[in-house]
């Protein structure tokens, strides 16, 4: 497969599988080595990066919810030049393109980051992260500054601002829209007893973001690809986004709960449909299968069929 996930033109990003991790879930490079087969993915989206180093959030960072979590990490990162320096060798070795997630701080910083990144061949494209509650003018200025880069630019929209921003950011030069960042919410930390705010992840986010993708796909010019993101937890979830008009998807926290789920979704949408129990080869029927079960099945080769 060859899927163009950014606006056609001189610089555009082509992936071989329309599935990638969402920024912040897979680390800066190959943290999931041994757990996920990277060459089954369409691309690596890095953790968010800022020009200056950012510290981790203080206070509660994680609250478990019913079928979900609240997370507030503070987007810790050592700053753009260190992130490039420490990871470019691994990026070069990865079998898939790298999309660097750049946090949109100020127009100057975004422009500066763009100049730096144009010299980094290991980065194939940039995804710009916009803060929640951003005003449209500021968002447009940030995207326009980033669009001066030669590399393709994906813009990841804040959840509640999707309808408001989508048109303007496509016009300002975004080569693809990622819909959307996880919505912010508030929950109580049972240990401290305090209300804490952060991003909300879980399968119930999917119907909300899927509707946005479906509606905006009908409203936004056809040449701007939409990448669906939010609450994807299964191949069927991912296919729903494709059906609603997304050209590709980003899988977020499902990967933490079940790392092979990201690969399974990628295999499915990439055409390597995961075969089922029956009559499948040992190494492909289920990518999660560990040695325990493999040995068991080898010991009793008929057992599998009876199930």
């Amino acid at each position, binding site marked *: 497969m060859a899927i163009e996930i950014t606006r056609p033109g001189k610089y555009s990003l082509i992936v071989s599988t329309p599935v990638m991790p969402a920024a912040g879930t897979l680390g800066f490079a190959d943290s999931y080595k041994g757990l996920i087969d990277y060459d089954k993915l369409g691309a690596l989206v890095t953790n968010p990066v800022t020009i200056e180093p950012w510290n981790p959030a203080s206070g509660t960072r994680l609250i478990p919810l019913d079928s979900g979590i609240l997370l507030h990490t503070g987007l810790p990162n050592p700053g753009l030049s260190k992130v490039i320096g420490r990871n470019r060798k691994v990026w070069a070795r990865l079998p898939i393109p790298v999309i660097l997630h750049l946090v949109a701080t100020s127009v100057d910083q975004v422009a500066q980051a763009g100049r730096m990144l144009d010299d980094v061949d290991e980065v194939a494209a940039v995804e710009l992260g916009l803060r929640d509650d951003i005003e449209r003018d500021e968002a447009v200025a940030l995207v326009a500054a980033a669009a001066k880069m030669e590399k393709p630019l994906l813009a990841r929209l804040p959840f509640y601002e999707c309808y408001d921003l989508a048109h303007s950011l496509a016009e300002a030069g975004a080569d693809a829209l990622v819909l959307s960042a996880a919505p912010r919410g508030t929950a109580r930390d049972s240990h401290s007893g305090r209300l804490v705010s952060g991003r909300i992840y*879980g399968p119930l986010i999917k119907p909300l973001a899927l509707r946005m993708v479906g509606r905006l796909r009908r409203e936004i010019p056809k040449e701007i690809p939409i990448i669906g993101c939010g609450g994807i*937890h299964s191949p069927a979830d991912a296919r729903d986004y494709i059906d609603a008009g997304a050209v590709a998807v980003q899988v977020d*926290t499902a990967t933490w709960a079940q790392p092979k789920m990201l690969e399974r979704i990628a295999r499915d949408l990439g055409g390597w449909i995961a075969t089922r129990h029956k009559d499948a080869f040992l190494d492909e029927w289920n990518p999660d299968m560990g040695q325990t079960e493999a040995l068991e099945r080898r010991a009793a080769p008929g057992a599998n069929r009876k199930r």
Partner: protein
Amino acid sequence: MRESQAYIERITRVNRNYQRLDLAVDSSLSSLRAGQALLARRIEKDYESERWDPYLRELWFPVEVLASNIVVIEQPARSNFTPGQLLSIIGPVGKPFRFRQKLRNILLIACDSTPAPLLMMLAPLLKRQVSITLVLMGSAREYETSHLPGEIEVIQANDDLTWSDMVMTLGWADQVFAAVGPGDELAQLGDIMRVMRERRNDVPANYILGVLQRQLPCGVGACHACMLSLRGARKLQCVDGPAFDLTTLRLN
């Protein structure tokens, strides 16, 4: 680090409040050492009925590794497990504990926490003739120890985290491991550290190690939600932990 399947082979009640699960694990986990943990998630055989509640994996510190790929986990008796339950395991998570070379006497502390992360070292240390003292603080005082080896001295701390003979115990110990959590672990470790410093004014590097058990979103160094600030460095609980030198860890 890899993902593998395991299943619960046997469940034994060890005392009024705790049960032990014997997990039949992948052979890659049989070299697990004290300090290392597993990220576990219940799964179904057919993989078609993925449930997302609870959402994240549970962090399990094995308390023993038996021969033939059996890893033992200690869980509250009220947790609802069934023999034959299939699990997906990510591990080993974290680095093994590093003990002083000439370790003779070790002090273990469980504060508002199950001592589970400290139990896997018991058998090997006893074999090396190390004397072990286990101090139970706060709600850990409710933990029943009758199933632990008889050689271990168990002490119930007072409400202020002290105990009689504390100065002596601290002078005698070559190394201290303190398991805390859940809750505000860094504050708990800060309290323990304060009480220690009042009793022993020279606390050398790597003398007192805090053992963290906070829930880990990814467990592999990707999400950075478990990041800690140490003197002059940032570390990840999942990759660099679970034990951190309390003289360098920035406590709240």
